[in-house]
């Protein structure tokens, strides 16, 4: 671990190969998911026939339907948004939100959501190929400046560790059926999903602890500032040009608030799913599973960007979380306002 940053600096080509390998692997998994869904389309059997109108109502090919009866049982139009948000309709025998939830989960979330992290990884790979790593202008000065306390670093890595375990187990629960079952079999998928579910449930509460800890340690420097507008207009300096920044720039602050806010939603919905008796209406559980999955995959996707900038994307970044110290030239270049606050020296005049 001590030489990790050195290795990153010395072997970008090796890392690039690993990134490309991962991208190709994940694209293959995405294509495989689509293929699985394509195979499992529901259709009438080939030998299905329509009965004459006076011989029963179950018309296999659908020329005749009992929609009015079913509407009455459902208590109105099941596709109306009120069915999801309002009270159960008068006279309804059962609610139909379960079916809507299933279609949303199977037809949208499981089918498309997994592509988001892949797209992020793809964009990062392309960006890396075009732009390469952001080097420290003028190289390292050899002098360092303190950036993170040990407790802040431990809080960060604690969250990272818990999040990785939850991310992996969560993706296995969500995508195991379309991704693992067709290739390793239902038995293997059952074993892995059982393990993932237990692990996910056990580590879930630790995520809440990590979230509170992270919030307390980092919130002080993460309030937005008017100078952050410059960061936005200059795309964070990723395409050239200097961007003035305090201890944290706009991108870091946005990531922090994403983790806090989306993480809070994930935590709250996770509690609802872990203790389902807390809610009386099953629709809260359905809503929780949707928000939990969408929020988690969103964070996983953006996390790849965070990892990229923190490792191979920007020279010197990893030092801050491994050693707590950063090179002075790195600080002047990326966080000049913070550098001046910390040292009392001008970042421009003192550029070495």
């Amino acid at each position, binding site marked *: 671990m001590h030489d990790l940053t050195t290795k990153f600096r010395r072997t970008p080509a090796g890392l690039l190969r690993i990134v490309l390998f991962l991208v190709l692997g994940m694209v293959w998994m995405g294509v495989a998911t689509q293929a699985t869904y394509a195979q499992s389309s529901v259709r009438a059997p080939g030998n299905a026939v329509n009965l004459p109108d006076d011989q029963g109502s179950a018309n296999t090919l659908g020329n005749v339907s009992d929609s009015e009866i079913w509407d009455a049982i459902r208590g109105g139009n099941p596709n109306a948004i009120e069915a999801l948000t309002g009270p159960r309709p008068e006279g309804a025998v059962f609610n139909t939100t379960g079916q809507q939830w299933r279609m949303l989960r199977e037809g949208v979330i499981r089918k498309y959501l997994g592509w988001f992290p892949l797209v992020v990884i793809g964009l990062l790979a392309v960006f890396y190929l075009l732009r390469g790593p952001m080097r420290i202008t003028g190289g390292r000065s050899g002098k360092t400046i303190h950036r993170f306390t040990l407790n802040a670093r*431990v809080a960060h890595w604690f969250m990272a560790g818990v999040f990785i375990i939850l991310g992996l187990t969560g993706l296995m629960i969500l995508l195991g059926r379309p991704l693992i079952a067709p290739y390793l079999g239902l038995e293997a998928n*059952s074993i892995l999903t059982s393990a993932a579910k237990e692990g996910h449930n*056990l580590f879930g509460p630790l995520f809440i602890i990590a979230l509170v800890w992270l919030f307390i340690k980092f919130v002080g420097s993460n309030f937005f500032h008017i100078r952050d507008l410059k960061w936005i207009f200059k795309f964070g300096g990723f395409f050239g040009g200097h961007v003035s920044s305090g201890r944290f720039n706009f991108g870091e602050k946005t990531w922090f608030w994403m983790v806090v806010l989306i993480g809070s939603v994930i935590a709250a919905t996770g509690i609802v799913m872990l203790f389902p008796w807390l809610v009386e209406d099953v629709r809260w559980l359905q809503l929780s599973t949707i928000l939990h999955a969408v929020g988690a995959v969103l964070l996983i996707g953006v996390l790849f960007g965070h990892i990229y900038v923190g490792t191979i994307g920007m020279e010197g970044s990893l030092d801050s979380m491994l050693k*707590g110290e950063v090179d002075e030239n790195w600080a002047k270049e990326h966080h000049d306002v913070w550098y001046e606050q910390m040292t009392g020296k001008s970042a421009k005049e003192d550029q070495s």
Partner: protein
Amino acid sequence: MSALQFIEGPLFYFAAAVFLLGAFWRVFGIIKIGRKKDISPPKGSAVGGFIKGNLRHFVPRGLFARRTWLHVLGGYSFHLGLFVLFFFGAFHIKFIDQYLGLSWQALPRWGFLIAAEIAFAGLIVLWVRRISDPVMRLITHKSDHIGTWLTFLVMLTGCFALQQSHDMLKLVHMLFVDIWLIYFPFGRLMHAFTFFLSRGNSGATYGRKGINL
């Protein structure tokens, strides 16, 4: 003989034998080295110092308490959590009963889960502190990483098998238990049996010199 029967049977007996004999041999070896004869007149009790040295280390010194609170909290969380989940988990008591014929009251499932959460939190804090602190990195041996990760994997595979739905998950857990037992005497996991000798040695030295610990 199935794979699970092998891992819970012959392999487990072998691993337990390596664990017990290896740990005994290491402790015996350390005691056999003995201490260099101190010809200076004693100003205090070495035995008292040995006991005091052991007890004193359970509480952080005031001077360092602020700097080490996280380490102390992580250490206690992990070790106490592990103790509770190992000795009071229903599956573990059943396992011990199967081999030794000893049994006692198990924790309810929710208690077991809370103990596991505390143990996991402590272990993760201890390890991430190890990689985040430059001084800790310098004094860390690869055996520390191996021991930590083996312990983590034993706990993780154990929690994966909680549902008791598949023998395969129990097999993986028991396999890691066997590996952990075999590795134990050869690495720094041995501190479980040697910490009292280390603390006691320092305590006895200071105690004999009359230094108030």
